[in-house]
Structures are given as structure tokens and as C-alpha cells.
């Protein structure tokens, strides 16, 4: 009775009493998304919302295989400079306009040329898009670019209605019109985003819920309280420390997947004067720090052993993980010997910049305790995130604890971090051999050949250690057992097709 009363209250509270006859899925978000225009959007949380109303040319499955969505197939030419994409027939945008080759060309060109587009760097290899016939487009590239199809499984592959986008210009995100299972209804910034079932969706037989309401609730404890009290049906980014509580509640379920990203420590090797210290100037000392860290213990202490220790830019379960370079075991004696060999006198201080946050601070403290045993005094400096970014870019740090949410293609976890002077080369790392291999990895599409290139690269990066890779988090999605058919993908997005509410 209590539950019924609660559900009734929530229907009234959240939906103003209008939609309880319909089925409504209420999803709790950790932040309020930015603009809902796939070309201009940049946040992770925004991608979660897009998943309900903006379909992409391709999608990924649990094993990271590319699967069709708005496109049926793709074929890359032998020289890697042309990709022909066949579109799914009978697809309509929410305004009734057809998704044909001209519309696909429009969307891709919009991503590529619109002022302020965040997609431009993702598909910069694209020279032009040609319409072959009503259902076929040809993507002509400036140079071969193997991560292209993976990019089209994310926002770069989202198709927008040319009519609506032309009319709205850069205000398109206030009322987006795409070709997804749900259509946009309303957004109240910082309060809610409402979408409702699109009756002409190409896969409408698998859409069983009438409405979805996204509610940004910043505090993870409050998100969990809402789920428990019936105010939410699902929420993203549960805390690792709440896993036990969620699992012990018979009305709740936890869906997880190993993330595509990683948590690591950037080490300033050559980005300004701060790099001049034993850690910045000696690869041996960096290896020593890596050896001083017990990744299993770190995972056990801070995350109840729920995450996965790692030492590369992809997790040990990823197809591109190099098994010949396994996660190192802790070896303090060897670490001390390496520091001695490098001629550094211990103990020495390292300015350790840590973005503010409960979990990051806990991780930093564990690392500090472990490193101290090898004679490395990590002086933690907790810094607000936006400030830490600015300081990292300016080289005002010696070590920086930084996470990356990850991309489907390994290049997305690599290139912008390790290529000399790339946007996120905060350590100031430059190695001609690594640069050559990073470029080669972009040209080759064949899995085995590419993996072999990355094996050589792994050897170089792990020897130089401009970034220490620590662990891979799990995407933690908590939901009610009333929700059926939920499957978690590694990208952390909440896919809504096929879901049912009991």
C-alpha cells in the first residue's frame, strides 16, 4: 500500500499527474547535460540522453563490435580512402522527413563544417561526402583513418533532420529533431528532459515504454534514495561504495560493464620547469613509482575490489590489450633499486595534483602511502577540476590524477594523449618512435596488423611512463527490478530500445 501511495505521489510530483496511465521511465542523471545538439554537445551525460532520441549510423554491442543502426552496412576501399555506407530504408526523422542519402550527407557535413562543432576533430579526415543513390553515401577521406567507423557509433554518426536543423541554426539543440526511438518534448534546464515514443520509429515494435523523463540529481546518495523510494526507475553512476547496499535490496538491480576508459597519473616529463625533478626527468624513477603501487590493494581498499587493475590505455578484457605486458605486481625493493640507479636521493617530494572528489582523494591517499615506502613523497594538492585542467595544460604540476571516459576505438584513448604536443599531452611527452606508430595505427584497419603496431607502441610507452595507468572502473547502473531487458554496454550509455516496465 505504501509503495502504491509512493508511486502515486511520484507520478503526481514528477509528471504533474498527466502521464501515469502511460508507462514512464524515470532516469536519474549525475549532471545536467549541455546543449542537446549532437554537433555542439560535449558532455558524457548528454550522450546518455541522446541515446533515446538520436540514433546513429552505427552502434556497438557488448563486445565492442560495430553493429548497424541507421546504416545497414559499410565497406572500405582497398586504399582506405573511401567508405561506402548503405542506409536503412524507410527511416523517418521526428518531423516526418525521410532519412535518405541527402540527409546523411547534410548531417555529416554539418558536423564537419558548422561553427563551433565539437565533431570536427573526430571526423577531420573526411574530405567530402557524395550521394551515390537515395540510400547510399560515399565518404571520401583525405587520408586513410581506421577509427572513422568507430566515430560514427557516437555523436558524429547522429543524423539530424535537415529541414529542422536548417531552420533552427545553432538553436537546434533547444528542440532537437533526430531519428531515434523517442522524440524530444521538453527541457527545463537543471530540472528535467522529457521525451516520448516516436510512432514512426524504424524499430517501433521494440519500443515498449511511452515516455522517458531524465532528472539531473547531482548527489549520488540522493539518486539512490530516489531509486529506493520509487522516485526513479534507473540511475547512472552509482558509487562503488553503494554496490553492497544496492545488491542487498531485493527490489533493486545493478547492471555493470567494464568501462572503455581508465584512471591514470599524468607525469610532467617536459612541460615547463616543474618537470625538473627526479620523477619528471627519469624514466626509471617513474617505473619505480609504478612498481611501488599495489594496484590490487588500491582496488580492494577504495573500491571493494569491484574495479579492474590495469597498466594500459585499454582494460585487460579489451581486444587491444597487450597480454605480453601484464599488470605489474608491487615490488618496493625493485622500486628502491631503480631510484638508486637513477641517482635520485630519497625521500623526494612530488607535487601531486588531484581533482576534488571523494573517490579521487581516497585513491590519491592510498597511492601516497604506497609511494612513501619507496621514498617518494607524493604531496597531495586537491584542486577543483576546471582549475586543475588549466594548471595541467600550463605544466604547473608534477603528477596529476586524471581519468578518461574512453572511446570505442583504441586510438581515442591514445593519440591525443601520447602524440607529441597533442591537445592532452599534458606531460609534454615527445617520442619520435611513438609518434610514428601512433600515425601508423590510424592508417591500418586490419585488427591483427593494428594490434601488432600497438604492441610496439606499448613497449615504448610503458618504458617511458609519461602516464601511469592504474585501473578501469565499472559502469555502475542501478535500476528497479520492475525494469526488464536492461543490458549495459561498455560505453556507459543507457539504451532504451527493448526495455519494459512491469
Amino acid at each position, binding site marked *: 500500500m505504501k509503495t502504491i501511495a509512493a508511486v502515486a505521489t511520484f507520478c503526481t510530483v514528477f509528471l504533474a499527474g498527466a502521464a501515469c496511465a502511460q508507462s514512464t521511465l524515470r532516469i536519474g542523471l549525475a549532471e545536467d547535460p549541455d546543449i542537446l545538439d549532437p554537433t555542439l554537445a560535449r558532455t558524457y551525460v548528454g550522450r546518455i540522453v541522446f541515446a533515446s532520441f538520436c540514433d546513429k549510423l552505427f552502434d556497438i554491442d557488448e563486445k565492442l563490435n560495430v553493429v548497424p543502426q541507421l546504416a545497414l552496412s559499410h565497406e572500405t576501399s582497398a586504399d582506405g580512402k573511401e567508405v561506402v555506407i548503405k542506409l536503412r530504408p524507410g527511416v523517418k526523422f521526428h518531423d516526418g522527413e525521410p532519412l535518405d542519402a541527402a540527409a546523411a550527407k547534410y548531417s555529416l557535413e554539418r558536423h564537419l563544417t558548422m561553427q563551433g562543432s565539437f565533431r570536427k576533430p573526430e571526423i577531420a579526415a573526411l574530405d567530402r561526402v557524395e550521394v551515390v543513390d537515395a540510400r547510399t553515401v560515399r565518404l571520401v577521406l583525405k587520408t586513410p583513418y581506421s577509427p572513422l567507423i568507430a566515430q560514427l557509433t557516437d555523436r558524429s554518426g547522429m543524423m539530424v533532420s535537415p529541414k529542422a536543423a536548417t531552420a533552427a541554426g545553432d538553436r537546434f539543440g533547444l528542440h532537437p529533431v533526430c531519428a531515434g526511438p523517442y522524440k524530444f518534448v521538453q527541457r527545463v534546464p537543471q530540472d528535467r528532459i522529457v521525451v516520448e515514443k516516436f510512432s514512426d520509429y524504424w524499430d517501433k515494435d521494440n519500443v515498449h515504454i511511452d515516455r522517458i523523463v531524465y532528472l539531473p540529481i547531482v548527489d549520488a546518495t540522493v539518486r539512490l534514495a*530516489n531509486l529506493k523510494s520509487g522516485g526513479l526507475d534507473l540511475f547512472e553512476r552509482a558509487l562503488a561504495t553503494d554496490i553492497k547496499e544496492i545488491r542487498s535490496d531485493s527490489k533493486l538491480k545493478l547492471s555493470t560493464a567494464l568501462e572503455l576508459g581508465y584512471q591514470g597519473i599524468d607525469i610532467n616529463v617536459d612541460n615547463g620547469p616543474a618537470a625538473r625533478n627526479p620523477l619528471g626527468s627519469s624514466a626509471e624513477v617513474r617505473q619505480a613509482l609504478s612498481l611501488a603501487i599495489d594496484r590490487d590493494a588500491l582496488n580492494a581498499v577504495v573500491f571493494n575490489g569491484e574495479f579492474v587493475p590495469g597498466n594500459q590505455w585499454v582494460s585487460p578484457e579489451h581486444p587491444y590489450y597487450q597480454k605480453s605486458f601484464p599488470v605489474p605486481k608491487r615490488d618496493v625493493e625493485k622500486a628502491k633499486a631503480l631510484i638508486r640507479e637513477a641517482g635520485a636521493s630519497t625521500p623526494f617530494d612530488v607535487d601531486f595534483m588531484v581533482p576534488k572528489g571523494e573517490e579521487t582523494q581516497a585513491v590519491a591517499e592510498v597511492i601516497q602511502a604506497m609511494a612513501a615506502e619507496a621514498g617518494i613523497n607524493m604531496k597531495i594538492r586537491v584542486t*577543483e577540476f*576546471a582549475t586543475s585542467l588549466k594548471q595541467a595544460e600550463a605544466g604547473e604540476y608534477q603528477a596529476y590524477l586524471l581519468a578518461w571516459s574512453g572511446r570505442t576505438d583504441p586510438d581515442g584513448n591514445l593519440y591525443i594523449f601520447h602524440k607529441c604536443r597533442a591537445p592532452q599531452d599534458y606531460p609534454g611527452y615527445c617520442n619520435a618512435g611513438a609518434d610514428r606508430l601512433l600515425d601508423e595505427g590510424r592508417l591500418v584497419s586490419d585488427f591483427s596488423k593494428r594490434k601488432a603496431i600497438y604492441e610496439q607502441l606499448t613497449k615504448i610507452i610503458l618504458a617511458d611512463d609519461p602516464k601511469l595507468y592504474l585501473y578501469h572502473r565499472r559502469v555502475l547502473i542501478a535500476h528497479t527490478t520492475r525494469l526488464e531487458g536492461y543490458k549495459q554496454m561498455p560505453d556507459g550509455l543507457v539504451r532504451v530500445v527493448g526495455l519494459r516496465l512491469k
Partner: protein
Amino acid sequence: MLTFLGNRLLQLIPTLFFVSLIIFCLQQLLPGDPALVMAGEERDPEVIAQIRRQYRLDQPLPVQYVYWVKGVVTGDLGESMRIKVPVRDLILEKLPVTVQLATMAIVIALVIGVGAGIISAVKKGTLWDYAANVLALWGISTPNFWLGIMLIFLFSVKLGWLPASGFVHLSQDWRASLAATIMPAFVLGNAIAAVLMRHTRSAMLAVLDSDYVRTARAKGLRERTVILKHAMRNALTPVITLAALELGTLLSGAVLTEQIFSIPGFGKLIVDSVFNRDYAVVQGVVLVTATTYLALNLLADVAYILVNPRLRG
């Protein structure tokens, strides 16, 4: 009176000018680069340069300030960099939310604070007095975020009576609206009630000790009449001033409480905007809040003149 009002209004202009200058300069002192925050996880240099151009972040500060003031004068507070919505629309959307929450909180604070203050003064030295003092101490020393989470745990998770978070406008459904705002309003009101209780108590004690109250009692008036009609009316003047000040603070947004209960008001807007370095929004909200303060101050001055003819000059 009109000359006085005219003078005060004229004084508002330089004050607002300085306020705008301070808001603008303080904001620029915030560490971190808005373009870097806006550029997404990839932080591509080309994208960053484009953002700097688009929002004139590449221009010298005085130029940026002039552009901003020019907009403000014509009623254009700029646009949120993050969601591309005009700041004016955002403020108009959040204002009713904050006003509703602030009003409910102040009503709760007045009922609890003034009530407990009077009882505690009248029953000085009794169990009632001690209980009210303990209540006040509790109210002052309980952190908002803790009380908020505890209330959610009790009334939403355990009892299932109230929604854990969210907001519904009064115009949409007044019952749901009250259900959604009662907990945050109580959290806010509770802390203010404690302050009001202490002030009411001391003011009442002073008044109850005065000659005219003794005279009233000597005349044989009923105790109830003495307290409510003679003592309370005089004792409440400083309390009302204090309550008005607290209302002003509430109207500028209750940062923590709005975050915990996901109330989309001024507090949440300003926190999100500061963390995202959404300068235009921060500037707009602070300017509106400052103007509200100045307006409330002016109203208070006018009220004093109305009450006290000697000030009319």
C-alpha cells in the same frame, strides 16, 4: 518623500555600476579557463580557439566588460555558453522556484522561531524554556546537507510519504508542489528559526521587564492580552528586520539545499554555472540578486519613514 525617493534611486545607479564591475572582475579571478572547460573531454585546440572567438574571451577584459554592460542596459544579459539559452530566460524560469522555496522557508522559520521564542521568554526558567533553547541549539548546529539527507531517508525511503527530490510548480499541481518543497523548505527554515527564536526570546525578555508591561499587568489585563498585544508587538520589530534580511539571503538561492533536493532554483543555477565557468549566467544571476538586495533595502528605508514620521525631514 518624493525627493527622498528620487535621491535614493539616483544613488542606486553608481552602486549598481560598482556592483557590476566587482561581479565582472571577481569572476575573472576565478582560476580555470572557460574555453577549456567548454571544449569537452577532447579539448581540441581548434575548438578552444573557436569558443574564445565566439564568446569574445580573446578580447581584453575592458572590452568584454563594455560588451556585457551594453547588453545589460538593453535588457540582454547574454547567453549561457553551456546550453545556449538566454540568461534572462533562465533567470525568469528559476525565480518563481526560488521565491516559492524562500517564502515557505521563511513562513516555517517565523512560525517555529517566533512561537518558540515567545514561549521560552514567557516560561523563562521552566522546562519549556530549556526545551526551546535545546531546539535552537540543534537548529543552529545541524548542517543543512545532513538534515536534508536524513529527512529524505526517513520521509522518502522509509515512510514513502514525500518525493526525495525534484520540483513541481504551484500552478501545475499545488499538492504535489507542496509535497516536493516541504522538506527543503523545512531544512532552510529550521536553521533560520533557531536564530529568530534566540532574538525573539531576548527581545521579549527585555520588553516583559519594562514599565509599560508592568503597568498593563497592574491595570488588571489578562496575561494573554499583555503578551500578545503589548509585549509581542514591540518585541517583534527587530525580529521582523532580521527575518527580512534572512529572506533576502534565501532569495539569492540556497546552494546546498537546492543541490541535495535537486530544486532547480538560483542556488543550483549559480553553482552549476560556476563549476562550468558559464560566465554570462553567473554574472546575470549575481546582478539580479544584487539588484533585489538593493531594492529590498530601499523598501526597508521607505517603510522606516512611513513608520517614523521624524525621518521624513
